[in-house]
């Protein structure tokens, strides 16, 4: 990111601390220069222009900003960009391939798991963290895994169904043991 400051004839521009970080996002290697206080959510949204990661509450409650950091579901409004140095981030934009949706994306559409769509990327990323470690979750497992994500539209019932739909599809795709 490039910052342009007013030249007031003093050293203000030099006063702005900047750190250089390296990270991987959705498989792409990146280098960024960021203020140490920059939130990871804002690096993703404003720096990388990946606007599928939403910010809803600023207090780590709503989960709309959930991304995966090294496979773990993380609320990216509560992590500094500099803490992502050397790590691998996945966002909603990395779920689908150019030709194919991820089963979670299909499941949310099939089971009407979204209405306004604002919480959806965070819900799907939290669900992905669950399904990456457990392809056979119970309804209770899903509800618990999503309990850090708020939705005001759906009442969750269809979100839970969406995740179970995706789990079933992923199981059917998994190579037989």
């Amino acid at each position, binding site marked *: 990111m490039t910052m342009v400051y007013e030249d007031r004839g003093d050293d*203000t521009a030099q006063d702005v601390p900047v750190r250089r970080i390296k990270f991987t996002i959705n498989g792409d290697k990146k280098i960024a220069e960021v203020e140490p206080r920059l939130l990871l959510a804002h690096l993703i*949204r404003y720096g990388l222009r990946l606007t599928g990661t939403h910010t809803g509450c600023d207090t780590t409650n709503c989960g709309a900003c959930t991304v995966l950091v090294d496979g773990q579901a993380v609320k990216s409004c509560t992590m500094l960009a500099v803490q992502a140095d050397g790590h691998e981030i996945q966002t909603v934009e990395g779920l689908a391939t150019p030709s194919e*949706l991820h089963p979670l994306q299909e499941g949310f559409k099939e089971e*009407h798991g*979204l209405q306004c*769509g604002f919480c959806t990327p965070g819900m799907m990323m939290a669900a992905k963290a669950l399904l990456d470690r457990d392809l056979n979750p119970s309804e209770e497992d899903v509800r618990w895994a999503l309990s850090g*994500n708020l939705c005001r539209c759906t*009442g*969750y019932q269809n979100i839970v169904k969406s995740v179970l739909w995706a789990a079933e599809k992923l199981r059917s795709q998994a190579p037989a043991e």
Partner: protein
Amino acid sequence: MSQAVDEIKIGGIGASRKRVEDNRFIRGKGNYTDDIVLPGMLHMEILRSPLAHARIKSIDASKAWDIPGVHLVLTGEMMATRNLAWMPTLSYDTQAVLATDKVRFQGQEVACVIADDPYIAKDACEAIVVDYEPLPVIVNPMQAVAAGAPVIRDDKENQPDNVIYDWEVGDSAGTAHAFAAADLVSKLELHYPRSHPSPIECCGSIADFNRATSKLTVYMTTQAPHIIRAAVAMVAELPEHMIRIISPDIGGGFGNKVPVYPGYVCSILASILLERPVKWIEDKSGNLISTGFARDVYLKGEMALRRDGKILAVRMHTDADHGAFFSDAQPSKFKIGLMHSAFAAYDIPAAHLTARGTYSNKAPGGVAYRCSFRVTEAMFFQERMMQAAADDLGMDQAEFRRMNFVPDDAFPHRTPFGFLTDSGQYAKCLDVGLKAIDYENFRQQQEEARSRGRLLGLGISTMTEPLGAGNSREYDILGIKMFDSAELKVHMTGKAIVRTGARTQGQGHETTWAQIVAHELGIPAEDVVVEEGDTDTAPFGMGTYASRSTPVAGAAVAMVARKIRAKARKLAAHLLEVSEEDIEWELGRFYVRSAPDRGVTIQECAIAAYANMPDGMEPGLDATAYYDPPNLTWPFAVYIVTVEVDPQTGVWDVLNMVAVDDCGVRINPMIVEGQIMGGLTEAYAMSNMQFITFDADGNCVGANYMDYLLPTAWETPGFELHSEVVTPCPHHPIGAKGIGECAAVGGPAAFVNAVIDALSGTGVRNIDMPLLPDRVWEAMTYRRDISGAPPVRSDD
């Protein structure tokens, strides 16, 4: 040979068509206000008052101006020089944009900073020094009308006290007469606490004033873009045709995104002054403490009863706390919204309602949170009163309701407060619900459980809600009549675009409007694109709230499609070389009455409109329809909940919840069920945990998601939905009624009634929402009601 099309196959009415809008949302490709970046865009942050009531002695912004990257600091004083320190509200009051003389609630907008990025703008806000002189604080209507109360709105002439209005409706004398003749009078008093719609996406705007063209474009989170355009024209004194409001994807609204907020106005002024785009994105705390709250009404009432259970009359009084400015969004004629829709489902000969509104040092902007102009409070009181009255009579809850329902053959029915209900099968809905919950069996289980010390309860709530404002005779906002519109353009290849003046926020208009076109014209829904939210392209409409989209804008879609069909009929007659009178219509196709094999499809008519129209016919195939509904739509619902209360802790769990909704014809059953489940969850939230209260100093308790509790997937119970009962709306072109809000309106009383039922025998008649464990525990332990004022904590 052409054939009629199968309505479900083409995604017409009744098809649970998968949603079109999902394709972008599941890929993270939605386009919400904060996703938009314009060249040269600056960022705005708001400095808010930490105090609920204080005189501003001075504001020193010099340190903010000194921070590199700051372009502008706006204060009330600067706004005043442009006549923008105050703005008119939707309820004929005024609201401060940026405070000049005083702050009147915690979180009030005091100054704005516009800077290169939001971090710098926040830094600069912290660098502004405001010297406040604290003043006495009012946090409820009792304090507002107490002798010697400070007058909050001393900025207004002719405002000697804190009373905004005194309003009444109904038959005072007839009601008094009925009470005098009653065998029994049942009474109830309660508080519907302040809540907040709290969509996950907060409010925001990007104002982009272009000096070269004089055009102001504003991207903003609004449910009603055309109303905003008119409001901006009035407030900013700009010509209306030079204002373009674009409402991009909206991350939930629920009423919160109807009003005009100071942040919008400041971003517009900043863009005009700086000639650059200015983005304002509110943080959650700002959203919760300053924007449109809901409820906060004290209700009391009494019911005159005959010994056999017949209701003779109802008397109600409401005291509504409107906060520091009366900026409610509601029709002009009704100062307390549609509160007088109470008891509409019951056949009650006489009723009288008085209502008083007062100012307080709390956030302004009462909105109808997932309801139609305060019917939530009305239905909640109605069903709590019904339970109390049945208990006082010693009658069964279900039977008491059944015997007082308006019977199916009594429509149209004039309600005790003057509405005209037109259709319903109330008893049938109740029967479906009782059967689903296994009523008799549950009552037995309840008895048995009680003998073993377990507390089970069952709560019934019914509601009929006046949805779909207006008609224009009775409903207007600031004098603008509440009709709606749709525009349909059929292209030459038979594909189409439909635009309305509504604005979807998750309700799925992009999917369902196309289904209505498919139903009317036989054009497959996938061939119809829906566009809303841009005032330069969409026809005028009053926006999406009060469950009015399907009743009004959806009706306009059907009507405009019928206009297209009428023209297509002429084209078909021309193509088939017969007179128009000899043409018949079946879905997707016109044919010759005497020779049904001879026909043309709607698509063939479309190309003819461009390539082969008869002499003298205006080419093209498009139309606009404005729809002024003859009446509101009246959906009905029965919600039944069973709960178990822990006698040791007061914690209660939902065992079962059954919802029977009769919303007439369902356009997309999948979407309708989604709306009902969302509403039920908000009902559960309000009854269980979600509320905003204030301490004695006016500090908002509930200013973030750590204090303002919303249910997650973990707490939210499952719901069983029933759609067996369908009573089409007699006046709606496709027989649909509103549905988005019913469950949030009727649901809360079912949960509360269930918990009160579990405590039967303790003498507890009321616990105010939310039914937090400590309140339930206190009520059952000390055998007393928890009613009235919210907990006002003070430091002593």
